């Protein structure tokens, strides 16, 4: 065993890459749940984003267009869920699960011609000046643009939710939809927008896996990342910065445990393999022990505008 074989700079840099898909999906889902809707279809929207982003990225040769298309695909799929749940009042849990199954099947169908094709590479964007800082530069400022985009999305989400009127309305709708409705807010319209945002973010997260992290299209390639994202939202108490913390912890320990294994550290592999799940849950639970961390009051409840 030799810990010196692990390069901490490379490790921290790959941590950010490993965490980005979960981060994107989780921040989107956090907003959806803040508006009072539980969408269990994250996995389905991610995989659809992964295949559409890959297909468009390959056909246009531009990963950035692929990402935009993936966001639209995720949002479009989420609208299916939105209409079923909000207008036709279908059960949210069952519809969300259905969306996941539908997304997995749809993506396999779309993806058939794209198996074994290589993705166009996304150039790293080195932030001028900052990327030359020793240690910090390679860790933080030499990534592909989507890493920065994901961080900007988290910051904006926090700002909008905590500091703006729109965020207040969204939270109000999620806490008590009847009260929000009585005050004249359009509960369904707010929720529909939140669901679309969640779908777009999940689509981006999926495309990040197929265009950057792996990068190729393989059927079923998200392999449960959407479920991890859902769990992180809960353990993060629906707070944007904690979602970031949770995603980076999970991604970081996932990468760290692989590095420790390769370095031959004398910790049983079984323990290392479960450590990302254990530690992420543990840290977020400890943080949540103090302070208000309840779920949005109307989460998962059906809304009738009639009474």
């Amino acid at each position, binding site marked *: 065993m030799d810990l010196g074989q692990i390069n901490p700079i490379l490790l921290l840099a790959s941590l950010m890459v490993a965490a980005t898909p979960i981060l994107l999906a989780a921040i989107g889902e956090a907003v959806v749940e803040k508006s009072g809707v539980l969408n269990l279809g994250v996995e389905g929207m991610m995989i659809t984003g992964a295949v559409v982003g890959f297909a468009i990225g390959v056909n246009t040769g531009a990963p950035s267009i692929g990402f935009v298309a993936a966001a639209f695909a995720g949002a479009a799929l989420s609208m299916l869920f939105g209409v079923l749940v909000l207008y036709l009042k279908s059960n949210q849990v069952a519809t969300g699960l259905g969306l996941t199954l539908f997304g997995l099947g749809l993506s396999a169908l779309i993806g058939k011609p794209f198996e074994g094709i*290589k993705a166009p590479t996304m150039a790293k964007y080195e932030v001028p000046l900052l990327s030359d800082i020793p240690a910090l530069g390679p860790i933080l400022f030499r990534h592909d643009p989507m890493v920065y985009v994901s961080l900007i999305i988290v910051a904006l989400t926090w700002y909008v939710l905590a500091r703006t009127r729109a965020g207040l309305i969204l939270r109000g709708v999620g806490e008590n939809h009847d009260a929000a409705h009585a005050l004249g807010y359009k509960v369904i319209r707010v929720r529909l927008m939140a669901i679309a945002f969640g779908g777009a973010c999940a689509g981006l997260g999926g495309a990040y896996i197929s265009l950057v992290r792996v990068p190729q299209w*393989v059927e079923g390639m998200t392999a449960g990342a959407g479920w991890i994202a859902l769990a992180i939202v809960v353990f993060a108490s629906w707070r944007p910065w904690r979602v970031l913390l949770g995603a980076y912890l999970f991604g970081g320990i996932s990468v760290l445990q*692989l590095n420790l294994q390769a*370095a*031959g550290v*004398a910790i049983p592999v*079984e323990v290392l393999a479960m450590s990302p799940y254990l530690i992420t849950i543990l840290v977020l639970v400890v943080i949540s022990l103090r302070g208000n961390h309840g779920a949005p009051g109307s989460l998962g409840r059906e809304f009738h505008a009639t009474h």
Partner: protein
Amino acid sequence: MRVLKSLLATAALATGLAGAAMAEDKTKVGFIYVGPVGDGGWTYEHDQGRKAVEAAFGDKVETVYVESVSESNAEGPITQMALSGVDLIFTTSFGFMDATVAVAEKFPNVKFEHATGYKQADNVSVYSARFYEGRAVQGHIAGKMTKSNIIGYIASFPIPEVIRGINSAYIHAKKVNPDVQFKIIWAYTWFDPAKEADAAKALIEQGADVILQHTDSTAPQAAAKEAGNVVTFGQASDMGDYAPFPRVSSIIDDWAPYYVARTQAVMDGTWESVSTWDGIGAGMVGIGEISDAVPAGVKAEAEALRDALASGEYHAFTGPLNKQDGSVWLAEGETAADYGDNGLAGMNFYVEGIDSEIPSN
């Protein structure tokens, strides 16, 4: 037997759908897959075998499959398949072993074939391929190609099949390059492209310039390609999209002849429970074309090794070989037995020189 079954099936169908009776004299063959058919590796090759069965028998056969079946929850899908009137079921992952045996007990008239396991029964055959012969060829090329002398190995689960592969690759890499070192990562998955990519990156970051994988997706190939100077081998399938570099050769599983022969046996009524374990010689393990990225001399040596393994003139585990703890496993000139205490079928130890531990399970 089959007549009786058809009669029963017809009787059952008479109360339900009349149209389905058309299928009564077809032999129905089912496949349970651990990954998606588009994984480009393990499951892809099993599905090629299924297609070969369809091609060989045409109208006389009907095939069905279920993909991405969880190993921890396989009894349901297998039972459902048995209930749907399938005559022969191939369960194609080690982890389906107990579920296969359990379901087989309940359906004595259905024939089962379990891949890579060791639990046989009257209506359960087992079949596997001697992948370790292919690993020997890979190990030879890997030992010659590495410049950093660090070879990364992405392992899936600590089961004998995977451990045999690590040992075989190590022995043959060490033979041509005494300084070689193996770094092993247990991914605890057969198929998770993102995790496989992360594992490959971790190994590359720690200096590995050859990556061997025992997981099913092509993600490690893509990671190696991005790194630029890392050699890989196709696993289970040729993965020829990554040739000539990083993929310099591959192990190809060819299940088609076996699946066709077993389906034929069911049709003829001659099916018996057997244990099959074939290697390069019988064609169940193929060595994918060694690309020009490998120096001509090394390529010739690797091909000679392949041919010696195929003809049986050389065994991949030939003594003198010690176990990891230094105790003698095989004496000079002795070859490993398939079964028994130190046999290959249940191999649960590393050979001497591997600086790592096998997880307990």
